[in-house]
């Protein structure tokens, strides 16, 4: 099933074009890495604040307003550039264990982030100036999970080149 799809995708004109023009894949990979650097740096700052390790002068709410738009913006760039890479080299990614692991971690980190943002939003709506103090340990767990998952996603992404 998956093999058939990989075979079909690899035979489409778009895929053929990406394979034939030598500079498309390296260029798109470079864009992909640049977007990852935006995500990693923004999320490192935000997650370290959640863990209470950095940036304590700013509130969680203000850092969230500052960094979340960059996360979602960069994720759109990542999805677009990543899709081009998959179409160009379907065999390299779709059946690859590192790729599957990366996608699972990505789905998890998106759910964790959305969940935390929902809690933060509810606290602010409830009249709290920042994340409610009662949710302190939730912030720490979110920060730790998010940071580890993003590092894991970047590592798994690089390892796609080495695993099958």
């Amino acid at each position, binding site marked *: 099933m998956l093999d058939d799809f990989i075979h079909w995708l690899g035979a489409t004109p778009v895929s053929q074009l990406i394979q034939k023009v030598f500079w498309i894949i390296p260029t798109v990979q470079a864009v992909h890495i640049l977007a990852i650097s935006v995500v*990693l*740096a923004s999320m490192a700052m935000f997650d370290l604040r959640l863990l209470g390790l950095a*940036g304590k002068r700013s509130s969680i709410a203000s850092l969230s307003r500052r960094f979340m738009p960059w996360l979602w913006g960069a994720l759109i760039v990542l999805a677009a550039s990543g899709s081009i890479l998959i179409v160009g080299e379907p065999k390299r990614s779709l059946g690859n264990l590192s790729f599957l692991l990366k996608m699972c971690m990505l789905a998890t980190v998106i759910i964790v982030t959305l969940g935390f943002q929902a809690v933060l939003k509810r606290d602010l709506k409830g009249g709290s100036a920042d994340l409610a103090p009662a949710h302190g340990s939730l912030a720490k767990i979110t920060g730790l999970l998010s940071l580890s998952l993003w590092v894991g996603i*970047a590592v798994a992404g*690089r390892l796609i080149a080495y695993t099958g």
Partner: protein
Amino acid sequence: MFDRFLQWLESTPPAIAISESSWLFPGIESVHVLAIAMVVGSITMVDLRLLDINLRERPVGELIAEVLPWTWTSFAVAVCSGALLFSSNATKYWGTVPFRAKMVLLALAGINMLAYHATIHRSVDLWGRRPPTPRAAKISGGLSLGLWIGVVTLGRWIGFV
């Protein structure tokens, strides 16, 4: 002379270990990518502030003081991991165009940063509290952004030649 240095580098124990192991190169490369992501991501925050695009409410001096330790720490990790990757196949890497071009852009980015700190940054307390930033700061930020994008692009390109 330099060729002999590269050959010696390739014959050092860490270089041999990396080129003979199946997992050391990918492992160190992952660390390298993570470190570069932190370097470029943190520098981009400063560059976008210098360009008046982002973080406009933050004083420039304060932002730089806060971000720079992260940049330097990550840069040290990137240099060390990069040197290890380089040593595993030094002669080959040295002979490629993207590698040399990357080193040139890296040097230019360093010079741009030094020039900024030696000149415009000295008066950051006067202009950095609120936008707009002076033209010289915008040029410096724009140059930095462009150079680092070039460094990442060329770095990825090394793997294709």
